């Protein structure tokens, strides 16, 4: 199958003086959520690889569960769902996953 690079379109986030605060906040929250999901996925991989001590596993899990709670709290305060944050690890996940 011949290589078929896909055309990537950059998304433009249009803001104006009235909406810029909320728009940027949504963007920041989106990036935080992305990093959180990546951390969690990577932690799971490391746990499965079996090279972590019990203490490390416990500490990782505790930290991640608190991160998840904090994220839920932030989302609810600004009345946002995960869909609103437009997170889809699909294409991005492919760009980041190990070869």
């Amino acid at each position: 199958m011949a290589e078929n690079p896909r055309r990537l379109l950059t998304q433009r986030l249009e803001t104006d003086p009235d909406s810029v605060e909320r728009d940027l906040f949504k963007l920041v929250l989106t990036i935080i959520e992305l990093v959180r999901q990546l951390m969690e996925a990577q932690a799971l991989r490391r746990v499965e690889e079996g090279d972590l001590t019990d203490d490390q596993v416990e500490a990782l899990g505790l930290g991640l569960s608190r991160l998840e709670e904090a994220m839920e709290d932030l989302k609810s305060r600004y009345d946002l769902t995960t869909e609103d944050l437009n997170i889809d690890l699909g294409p991005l996940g492919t760009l980041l996953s190990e070869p």
Partner: protein
Amino acid sequence: MSEIQSSVSGQLAVRDASQISLVDLLDRLLGTGVVLAGDVLISLAGVDLVQIRLHALITTVRADMPVPRNLQGGADG
């Protein structure tokens, strides 16, 4: 052919030729498909200002990867 049936799980949705979606059209006309990159271009009052390249910002770390030089302890150039 111009019937439109609304679709519910297990049923069929049919649309006529003039209603080809933009995504389908671009998928076929551009020959490379269309996908949104993890990039965002922030524009304020119609002026493009900042581009965030998410995929360049973030990589995951494996146990067997070397630690970046600037994070290693001890004297280093």
